[in-house]
């Protein structure tokens, strides 16, 4: 299968600092890829390059023709001077029918909020509405940038379950950025461990065993940060890291 989105040799700056060095990445249709890495490793910068918000100083991003991106930002600040109902927000950038809006809210687990002001939502509801908006454009790829920041652990676990449900319904690719390794890795087809450059890459099994990954997250912390594997319905077998 060919890639729907690929980046080759990306070098990019955040402000004056070069935070990405020669990064390659490709994404196939329907694939779930998670980018993990410590703070400041360039995860968000990479996403911003991929959505076209940031021009890389070197390298190239190639998208499938007409690729639709559903983007869920890390956080969205709506200025308090701007009134904005959930329903109106879902119409950005393209107006959608009421039926679709309600359906997207249900799929995202935020039913019943559509007439509320965005400012009155709780953190979890807000993220779900962002997710609903992102899926309304029927994206080929859903991109989430630390979308569970500010949610407690059960909250973010539920959020990731929701993403799994969304992906099954839309059959889209998912590209996530996270540092919540234990939740995210179990659901990913492929994990990219980033620290300015790609340290290692592969299935969760391969990455969790890779020395570069262990160095970043693993051994020194007495297992607290090492990979924790969920009970999951497909082929992964339980093993050591727990």
């Amino acid at each position, binding site marked *: 299968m060919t890639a729907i989105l690929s980046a080759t040799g990306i070098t990019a700056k955040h402000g004056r600092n070069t935070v990405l060095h020669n990064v390659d990445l490709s994404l196939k249709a329907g694939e779930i890829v998670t980018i993990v890495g410590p703070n400041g490793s360039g995860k968000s910068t990479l996403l911003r390059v991929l959505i*076209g*918000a940031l021009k890389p100083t070197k390298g190239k991003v190639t998208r499938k023709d007409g690729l639709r991106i*559903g*983007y869920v930002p890390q956080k969205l600040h709506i200025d308090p001077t*701007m009134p904005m109902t959930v329903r109106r927000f879902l119409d*950005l*950038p*393209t107006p959608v029918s009421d039926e679709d809006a309600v359906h997207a809210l249900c799929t995202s687990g935020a039913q019943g909020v559509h007439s509320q002001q965005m400012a009155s939502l709780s953190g979890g509801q807000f993220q779900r509405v962002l997710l609903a908006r992102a899926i309304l454009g029927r994206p080929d790829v859903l991109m989430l940038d630390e979308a569970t920041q500010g949610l407690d652990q059960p909250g973010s676990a539920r959020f990731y379950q929701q993403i799994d449900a969304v992906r099954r319904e839309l059959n889209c690719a998912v590209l996530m950025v996270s540092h919540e390794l234990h939740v995210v890795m179990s659901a990913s087809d492929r994990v990219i461990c980033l620290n300015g450059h790609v340290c290692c890459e592969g299935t969760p099994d391969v990455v969790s065993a890779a020395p570069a990954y262990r160095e970043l997250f693993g051994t020194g912390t007495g297992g607290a940060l090492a990979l924790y594997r969920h009970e999951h319905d497909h082929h992964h077998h339980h093993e050591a890291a727990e």
Partner: protein
Amino acid sequence: MLDDFMLRATLAAIGTAISAGALGCFVVWRRMAYFGDATAHAAILGVALALLFGTSIFLGVGFIAFLMSVLIFALSGKGQSVDTILGVLSHGALALGLVAVTMIPNQRINLDAYLFGDVLTVTRGDLGIIWIGAVVVALVLWRHWTALLTSTLSPDLAYAAGMNPRREQLVLTLLLAAVVAVAIKVVGALLITAMLIIPAAAARNFAKTPEHMAFMASGIAALAAFGGVRLSVLLDTPVGPTIICVATAFFALGAVSSLVRRAA
């Protein structure tokens, strides 16, 4: 029918108010008040240029406001702290304009007219230009509405949707220059920002969606313009400041009523 100066003044004020009210919402949402100030203050320099070259005031003001807004636009992409630069540009341009106006030979102009507006002297030609400007601003706003709104919420969301938020920001700055040119005769350089911000702030108390707020801001601005012109004749007060006073009264009314609603 446009022979009556009162009618011309009222129509000029309403035309300006409608476009300023709607555009003002973006000024408020994007926290561009200082940006508006800088562009508006530069208008005095435009007046000086227009007098020097004997061209239309609208042309001189529009040109300088355009230059100023493009300059600020270019600078705003560079660093995080534009606040100080805006302050320098805003007051620097105002002072330069004030000095330049007095240096023009064989001109004894009434500076107050440009600082605070002089809507009672608008001609039919002025009125035509004001309304053409207002309609153009409204049309561009309408066409770019979704892109402007998305870019205002989050540039990254706009990029992901294939929009170009930098371009939208440029559109907004050009509209601002147009409104400054249109408004200079009505409320004057010093109160243009008030015309942008106060109706929008008043509308915020009632609105539920951005569109709702923009329509209400235009409506409130138009009411303030109408009421301000009438009231100024009645009380023999300057028109521009009276319009702003009425708009401020609407804001106060809105703030109080929303307090009452919240308490209830």
